[in-house]
Structures are given as structure tokens and as C-alpha cells.
């Protein structure tokens, strides 16, 4: 009975995901697309759990269901003041077939490439090196020790994204619409401490179990979006967005400092001395989480935040 039920589970999940993906990319109504995509993210989290990847499920829950959902919904709110987009009504079959053929070719090539991968993977190699990593969770170990260079580049990408967004101009007004209900500030007030606790908790978990800087940062960033929608006043004011700039670049700066100091003491780039690995990773985790939270929050604002928040509603 159990195998039958788990097959049913997989099939249902796969069917729902495919249907939602189709709706997200081809529905006539734009709002339906966005909602389908949000639900798609929710079900992807279930798929990650099924594939024994709780790390990714956590990140998907925080980034996919939280930040991306908020990004898309508020972009939708800003888009609809413009003339409505035309739905994909004209469907030319030759074009569709050509596109599908192209997609299938790419897929086949990628599949062939994946097939050539060495079969056992790197699980044994990682397990062998874990004692030296300074943490107990293999994924955190890989992210912040063995492949720290990737992580540096990744926070770099996020920073670059925010720089690009800021270069487009100031945050469109209204930054936050008038509070529609007195229930919103109450909600934000009640949930904000939970967001803070959950962020610290995920950081703590990250050292020995699924969790870590990305998930923690994403949860805090989503919390920031929630409280600003609930009418909180942001603290980060000041000329030239001074505090913003410091916090946004904190993660990259710390990682670069760590990397450079390892070269200075004669190790290779990003090769921490074994004794200090735990401490270095701790610092990197905290700074990376703060930066990621701020970067995601800044990305939500769609532009450079004002130096003072005066002049925006309710502040």
C-alpha cells in the first residue's frame, strides 16, 4: 500500500507542477499567471522535501514563496496602471512547433551532458573532508568553506543586482500605499519578533543541520518587506544612503577580507586554517545573512531608496 500511495503522491505533485507551470507562462490573465507561479513555488518546496533536500526546501519557502511572491505581486500593482498587456491569443502553430523543437534539442543536449557526469558524485569527497570544515552540515560546509568562492560571487551577483536597480533611479512612488486596515500594523508588530528569532534560529541550525545564511537572510528580508508594508518606519536614513551602502556590501567585504587574510598568512585563497575554520565561518555566516537580508529588501524597493523617508505616506 505504501509504495502505491507514494507513487500517487509523486504523480499528483508532478501533474500539478506541470499544470501550474503552464498556467504561469500561458494564462490569459496576468494575475492568474502570478498566483499560479506562487503556488508553483509552494509545490516545488514539497518536491524538494520529497528529494531529501530540506536545505533547498527552506530556501524555496523563504525566497520562492516569500520574496519572489512579494516582488511579483507588487510589480503587478505597478504594472496595471499602464495599458493592459495583450494575452497570448494569436497562437501560430509553426512557431510553436519550432520553439518546442528548439527546446527539445537543448534539453537533449543538456541531458546527454548530464549523462556523462561521473556517477558517484562528490558525496564521498565531501564526507571525507567534513571533519576539517568547521561545521557539521555538509551543505554549509560546501558553501562557506570548500566552495566559498562561489558564495562570494553569489553575494556579488546580488549586490550587482541592487546596484543595477539603484542605477535605474529612485524608488517609484508611492513606496508604500496608504495602510488599508488597522489590522496590518498589529500583524507586523506581532510577527516582527518572530522573524528576528527565526533568523537567528536558522543561522544557529546552519552550523549543524539544514539552514544557514541564505535561508536566514531570506527570512529576514521577507520580514522586512512585511513590516514595511505594515507601516513600519525604516531606520536606514541618512545622506547618500550611507548606512544602506555599508550594510549592503558588508557580506562581500567580509568575505574578501577573509579570503585576502588567508593568502596573507600563506594559505591558498579561501583556504582557512583548520583551527580557525569554525570562527571564520561563523563571522561569514552572520555578515552574509545580514547582507542578503538587506539586499533582498533593497531589491524589493525597485529603485534607490530616498535619503529621508519623509514625504512618503505614513512615515
Amino acid at each position, binding site marked *: 500500500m505504501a509504495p502505491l500511495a507514494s507513487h500517487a503522491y509523486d504523480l499528483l505533485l508532478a501533474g500539478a507542477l506541470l499544470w501550474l507551470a503552464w498556467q504561469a507562462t500561458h494564462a490569459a490573465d496576468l494575475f492568474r499567471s502570478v498566483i499560479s507561479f506562487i503556488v508553483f513555488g509552494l509545490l516545488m518546496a514539497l518536491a524538494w522535501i520529497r528529494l531529501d533536500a530540506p536545505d533547498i526546501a527552506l530556501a524555496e519557502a523563504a525566497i520562492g514563496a516569500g520574496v519572489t511572491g512579494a516582488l511579483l505581486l507588487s510589480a503587478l500593482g505597478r504594472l496595471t496602471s499602464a495599458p493592459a498587456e495583450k494575452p497570448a491569443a494569436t497562437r501560430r502553430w509553426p512557431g510553436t512547433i519550432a520553439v518546442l523543437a528548439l527546446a527539445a534539442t537543448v534539453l537533449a543536449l543538456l541531458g546527454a551532458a548530464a549523462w556523462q557526469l561521473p556517477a558517484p558524485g562528490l558525496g564521498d569527497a565531501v564526507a571525507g573532508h567534513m571533519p576539517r570544515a568547521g561545521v557539521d552540515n555538509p551543505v554549509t560546509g560546501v558553501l562557506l568553506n570548500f566552495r566559498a568562492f562561489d558564495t562570494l560571487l553569489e553575494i556579488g551577483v546580488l549586490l550587482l543586482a541592487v546596484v543595477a536597480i539603484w542605477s535605474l533611479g529612485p524608488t517609484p512612488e508611492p513606496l508604500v500605499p496608504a495602510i488599508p486596515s488597522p489590522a496590518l500594523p498589529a500583524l507586523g508588530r506581532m510577527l516582527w519578533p518572530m522573524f528576528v*528569532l527565526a533568523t537567528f534560529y536558522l543561522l544557529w541550525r546552519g552550523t549543524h543541520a539544514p539552514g544557514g545564511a541564505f535561508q536566514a537572510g531570506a527570512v529576514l528580508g521577507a520580514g522586512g518587506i512585511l*513590516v514595511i508594508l505594515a507601516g*513600519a*518606519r525604516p531606520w536606514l*536614513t541618512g545622506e547618500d544612503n550611507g548606512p544602506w551602502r555599508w550594510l549592503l556590501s558588508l557580506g562581500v567585504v567580509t568575505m574578501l577580507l577573509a579570503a585576502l587574510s588567508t593568502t596573507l598568512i600563506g594559505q591558498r585563497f579561501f583556504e582557512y586554517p583548520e583551527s580557525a575554520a569554525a570562527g571564520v565561518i561563523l563571522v561569514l555566516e552572520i555578515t552574509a545573512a545580514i547582507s542578503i537580508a538587506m539586499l533582498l529588501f533593497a531589491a524589493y524597493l525597485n529603485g534607490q531608496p530616498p535619503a529621508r523617508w519623509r514625504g512618503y505616506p505614513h512615515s
Partner: protein
Amino acid sequence: MTRIPSFIRDIIGRTRPRDLPGRLILYAGLWWLITGGDAGAWTWGAPAVAGAAIISPFPGRSPWQISIPGALTFLPVFVAFSLRGALDVARRALHPRRPLNPALLDYPWRLPDNGSRVFLANLINLMPGTLCVRITGRAMTVHTIGDTTRTLSGLAELEARTAMLLKQPLHDEH
């Protein structure tokens, strides 16, 4: 560099010192709960609890105080009403003819104008047959789908329980 102190003051200056002990205890309890009672987690827990208690982006005003005896009498009522609400709505959904008698009622506030009204407005969304659809300074408008007299008596009882729970006075001037 003169702006840094004001920046810090801005972050922590929104919490009244009088509220701190209660908050610290509450969040320490929540931390204990989230971590599943792990004693090794307190090195992370101490800054987390302090941060949650001190750093608040909202202007400092502790909206509610909860009275323990009030909570003890509130909880059974809450559970009973929730179950009744769920059974009621399940019956309507399963019934072949979907018996729904929608109506909008104005329910004048007896609670004072602070956070407690929002609490009641949210609470009744989980209670049998009621949904708060408008909040004004004088009353709230309730969308009901069942027997209105029974709903009104339920609302009055919930309001009384809420007043006890949050230590708020009720006044009958309407």
C-alpha cells in the same frame, strides 16, 4: 560620523524600558520552543532574544496586556467556538442546497479604541458564522451566513471574553 549615534538611537529608541522584562521573558520562551529546548543554542539565543525585544521598527506602544485568568477562561471558549464554526461551515458546504443566509450587521463597539478592537475583528473571522468586513470608529460591520440572533449573542460573549483577556473595560453607551 555624527549620524551613527542617531541611527542607533533610532533603532532601539522605540521600545519603552518598562516593557522590556515582559518581552524578554516572552521571547526567551519562544526561543526555547523553536529550538526544541536545546541548551547549546543559548549562545545564539541570548542575542536573538535581546534583538527581538529591543529592536522594533514600530513606534513604542505595547498594545495589549494579557491577563492569565482571562486567558484561562478565554481558551476553552475559543476552542469550543472554533469547533462549532468549523462544523457549521462544513455542514453548509456539504449540504446539497448550500444553505446560506448572508446578511450584513453593524455591531457597535463596546471595547475602547486601541489594539483590542483589531484583536476582536480578527478573532471573529475564526468564529462561527461571522466575518468582519468593515471597521469604523463607531462599529464594525459583520458578514454573517447563519442565524443572526445567535450570531449576535456569540459576538457579545466573545467581546466580553476579549475584554477580560486583554484587561480592557467595556462600556455600554450605544
